């Protein structure tokens, strides 16, 4: 099964220990949020939870020993992948099994296979416990809605460094100010411990927007220490290669310290992180 998966990582989010696999075989199985169903008496079916399963086979020389230790210790793990088309965020802590594939026929390579499976329960949402597949990593991690109706898009942080700002959310995050203020607007951490991944990022702004500065992306390690950062020019797409020891990505549609004056309206309609150089709204 050719999956388009380029790299993936299994990791213990309690310790920050990561096993990154860079030579993923086409063999294996990927199921993300397949619905389970109970039969109704009238011949229909009722939703009864999700079934997600990963069976990843890799040719990497390293990583097996740590994976086996985790299996033996029953350590619950998380998983992320980076693909040609889409990516997986498996944030629900799940135990794994791993086995070696040795003495293979001529023309084949030795490998090892990791299985991670969760049957039942609701795997959707943006509560840090989700299992998700899609194109926009930031949307998969944070969503783009104001579920608690407080005028601030959920899983993002917006605030004034100086002065004060007013916030409303109507599909777009709108920011205005009764004075001249400076502000910040950044996403919650996107847990993505994959190094050497080429990430495209861009922000989309609404029709009323007056902001014309840069967007930003930062890679931080498990201790939330800055490793490197990049900027995206207004109305452009930035390319950012995740450095070694990346554990988190933080994205800012409005650069830290941007000034917002009376009469300004900063209107952000979304932010993207993934593989795409086409600046369109991608909420999946």
């Amino acid at each position, binding site marked *: 099964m050719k999956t388009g998966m380029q790299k993936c990582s299994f990791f213990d989010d309690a310790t920050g220990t990561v096993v990154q696999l860079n030579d993923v075989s086409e063999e294996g199985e990927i199921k993300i949020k397949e*619905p389970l*169903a109970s039969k109704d008496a*009238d011949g*229909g079916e*009722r939703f009864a939870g999700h079934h997600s399963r990963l069976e990843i086979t890799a040719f990497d020389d390293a990583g097996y020993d740590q994976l086996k230790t985790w299996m033996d210790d029953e350590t619950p793990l998380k998983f992320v992948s980076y693909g040609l*088309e889409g990516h997986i965020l498996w944030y629900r802590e799940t135990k794994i099994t791993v086995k070696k594939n040795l003495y293979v026929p001529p023309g084949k390579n030795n490998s090892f296979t990791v299985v991670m499976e969760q049957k039942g329960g609701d795997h959707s949402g943006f509560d840090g416990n989700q299992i998700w597949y899609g194109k926009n990593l930031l949307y998969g991690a944070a969503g783009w809605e104001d579920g608690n109706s407080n005028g601030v898009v959920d899983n993002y942080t917006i605030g004034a460094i100086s002065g004060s700002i007013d916030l409303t959310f109507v599909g777009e995050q709108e920011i205005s100010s009764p004075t001249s203020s400076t502000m910040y607007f950044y996403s919650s951490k996107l847990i993505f411990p994959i190094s050497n991944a080429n990430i495209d990022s861009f922000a989309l702004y609404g029709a009323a927007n007056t902001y014309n500065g840069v967007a930003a992306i930062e890679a931080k390690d498990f201790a939330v220490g800055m490793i490197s950062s990049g900027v995206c020019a207004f109305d452009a797409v930035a390319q950012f290669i995740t450095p070694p020891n990346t554990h988190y990505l933080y994205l800012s549609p409005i650069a830290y310290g941007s000034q917002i004056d009376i009469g300004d309206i900063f209107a952000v309609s979304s932010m993207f992180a993934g593989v795409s150089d086409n600046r369109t709204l991608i*909420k999946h």
Partner: protein
Amino acid sequence: MGLGSLSGVKKVEYSTASDMTGAVDLLEPREDSPGLKDDVKETPLANGQTNYAGVAREKIYHISDMSKFAALETLMKANTEIYLRVTDLENNTEIYGPGKPKVKPKTNPAPGETAYFEVKIVWFEA
């Protein structure tokens, strides 16, 4: 791959209303969509014939527009029934259902392919 049973389907829409009020357009389905599956039930008779005993119906489409997945997933988790309206190239339409939708993403497409999700409804007609 041949055209199969999906020849000429140019649009699939869904709605929670039988009159398709507020229908959401899922656009044209993929060619590899299974389409309509009918499992006709029969009761054997002593004279060698059978009586019709209803039909278990499934309607399955593969949809490329991934932005439509989340709303259908919400309906699925709420066990809300939907109707599907299928339109062909000659603008003939047919409404199927109602049935509780089941949606699942087809993940990690191979190089050269694109992601899509499957939407299925199952219902029984007496």
